C-alpha cells in the first residue's frame, strides 16, 4: 500500500532506532564524553557522575534526553514529558514571577527518531510555548526550529515583529537547515502570520511556509490531515479556562501600585474637621483599602472570568456593571457602619476602578481591535477620572457634613 509506505518515509511510524553503542557515541565527540570510571574509595556515597553529554562552558538542559547527529552538527533531542521543574516553572510564570526571563536557547531541536524527511515546526523561545509544544509532540518525529523572540509567546512576538520574516530566514540559514532536512517546507504557527510573510520567507531561504494550527494540541491532526484539516484548528478561542488562567498575571501587574494605593487611602481617610486624625485614618482607611480590593476583584477577576455573560460590548461598560453590583454588595454588608455619603463614595470608587481595570483587560483578549480599544478609551477615561474625583470628594466631604 502506497499510503502507509509514504507515512513511514515521513518518519511518523519509523521503527525505534537501536540504542547507540559506546563506539558510536564516542564518534560524536566533542558532544559525547565518556563518564569518569574512578570510584571514590572512602567517605559517604557520592552523587551521580557527570552526564556524558556535558560540555565545558555549557549547561545541559533538563529537557534534553540526547543528541541527534546531522550533517550540520549534533542537534539536541528533547523530552516530550514534562518534569517537576517544568511544572514549577509554569506555575511561577502564571503567577507573573520573572516572566520576561523564561526562555530557551534559539536554534534547532529534535523530537523522537527524526529523519531528513521529518517535518520542521517553527516556534517562539518562550519556555511555556516550548513546553506545550514538546508535550504535544509525544510519539511524533519532528524538527523544532526555535526563533529568538526574546522569551515572548508566538502571537505577541509576531505583533512586536520579533517573530518576523527576517528572523525565520536568519535562523534557517544559521542552523543550516537545508543540510539537515531533505524537504523544503516549514510549518509555522498560524498566529505568527502577523509577523511573517510566507512569500518573503520562500524568497529569502527557499523554504515554503505552511500555516499550522493555532494550538499545539492540534498539531497531530494537522500533520495527518494537512491542508484539509478542520477549519476549527485555525480559529482562536477564549474559553473559561483560557480566561481564568490569565487572572493571576493581571493581579501581579498591580503589585507595584499597591503600596501607594494603601498609603493614599490612609492619608485621604484621615482628613477631617480636626485637620487630620490618626484614628480615623486607620478605621476609614481600612474600609477604603477593602474597597480597592473589591474594585480590583471586580475589574481584574470577575470581568475576565464572566466576560461573555456580562452585558455590554465595551469593556469599560462591563466593568461599570460588575463594579456597581460588587460595590452595592459591599455597602449592604457594611450596613450602618458607614453614612449615606460614604456609601455613595464607595460605590463610585469601586465602579471607577472596576471600569478602568476591565478596560485594561482588552490587551489580554484575542479579539479586541486596537481601533476599538482606542475609541472606547477616549470615551471612558474622562468619565473614569471624573468618577474617581467625585468619589474622593464624597469620601472626604462625609467628614464635614
Amino acid at each position, binding site marked *: 500500500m502506497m499510503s502507509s509506505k509514504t507515512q513511514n518515509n515521513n518518519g511518523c511510524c519509523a521503527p525505534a532506532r537501536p540504542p547507540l553503542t559506546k563506539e558510536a557515541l564516542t564518534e560524536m565527540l566533542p558532544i559525547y564524553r565518556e563518564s569518569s570510571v574512578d570510584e571514590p574509595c572512602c567517605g559517604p556515597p557520592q552523587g551521580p557522575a557527570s552526564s556524558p553529554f556535558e560540555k565545558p562552558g555549557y549547561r545541559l538542559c533538563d529537557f534534553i534526553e540526547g543528541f541527534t547527529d546531522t550533517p550540520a552538527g549534533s542537534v539536541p533531542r528533547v523530552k516530550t514529558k514534562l518534569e517537576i521543574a517544568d511544572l514549577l516553572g509554569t506555575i511561577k510564570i502564571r503567577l507573573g514571577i520573572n516572566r520576561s526571563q523564561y526562555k530557551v536557547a534559539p536554534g534547532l531541536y529534535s523530537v523522537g527518531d527524526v529523519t531528513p524527511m521529518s517535518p520542521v515546526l517553527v516556534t517562539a523561545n518562550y519556555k511555556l510555548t516550548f513546553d506545550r509544544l514538546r508535550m504535544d509532540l509525544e510519539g511524533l518525529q519532528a524538527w523544532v526550529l526555535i526563533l529568538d523572540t526574546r522569551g515572548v509567546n508566538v502571537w*505577541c512576538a509576531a505583533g512586536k515583529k520579533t517573530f518576523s520574516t527576517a528572523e525565520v530566514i536568519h535562523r534557517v540559514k544559521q542552523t543550516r537547515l537545508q543540510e539537515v532536512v531533505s524537504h523544503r517546507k516549514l510549518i509555522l504557527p498560524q498566529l505568527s502570520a502577523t509577523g511573517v510573510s510566507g512569500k518573503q520567507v520562500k524568497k529569502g531561504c527557499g523554504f515554503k511556509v505552511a500555516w499550522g494550527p493555532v494550538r499545539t494540541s492540534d498539531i497531530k491532526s494537522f500533520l495527518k490531515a494537512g491542508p484539509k484539516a478542520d477549519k476549527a484548528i485555525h480559529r482562536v478561542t477564549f474559553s473559561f479556562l483560557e480566561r481564568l488562567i490569565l487572572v493571576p498575571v493581571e493581579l501581579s*501587574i498591580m503589585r507595584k501600585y499597591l503600596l501607594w494605593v494603601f498609603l493614599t487611602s490612609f492619608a485621604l481617610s484621615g482628613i477631617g474637621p480636626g485637620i487630620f486624625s490618626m484614628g480615623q485614618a486607620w478605621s476609614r482607611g481600612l474600609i477604603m483599602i477593602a474597597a480597592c480590593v473589591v474594585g480590583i476583584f471586580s475589574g481584574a477577576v470577575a470581568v475576565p472570568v464572566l466576560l461573555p455573560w456580562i452585558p455590554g460590548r465595551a469593556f469599560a461598560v462591563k466593568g461599570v456593571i460588575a463594579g456597581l453590583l460588587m460595590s452595592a454588595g459591599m455597602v449592604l454588608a457594611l450596613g450602618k457602619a458607614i453614612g449615606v455619603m460614604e456609601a455613595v463614595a464607595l460605590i463610585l470608587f469601586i465602579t471607577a476602578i472596576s471600569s478602568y481595570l476591565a478596560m485594561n483587560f482588552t*490587551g489580554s483578549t484575542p*479579539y479586541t*481591535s*486596537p481601533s*476599538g480599544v482606542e*475609541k*472606547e*478609551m477616549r470615551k471612558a477615561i474622562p468619565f473614569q477620572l471624573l468618577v474617581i474625583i467625585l468619589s474622593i470628594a464624597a469620601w472626604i466631604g462625609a467628614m464635614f457634613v
Partner: protein
Amino acid sequence: MEKFRYLSNVTTLNLNQEACTGCGTCEIVCPHGVFEIKTHKAGIVDRDGCMECGACATNCPEEAITVDPGVGCAAYIIQTWIKGKGAASCGGADCC
C-alpha cells in the same frame, strides 16, 4: 468566538477585490474567519470579527488587503497619547 463581539464598525480593514486572485491565504491566516473565498475572489464575511492583527495584509501576495495593525492594550495606547506613536513601547517586565 461568535459569543465574543467587540465594538462594531471600527476596523481599518480594507480589501481591494479587483487585485485579489483568490489564492485563499487570507482565509487561512485570519484567526477569526473574517474572509471567505467565493467565486474565485476573497470576500469579507465578518468585518466586525476583525481584530486588526495584520496577518492577512502581511501575507496577501497581491497586496490587496490593507489594515492598520496595532496592539490593543490600554497601557500601550495611553503611552501613544502621551509620548506619540513612535516613542510608545510595548512589552517590558510588566506587559504582555
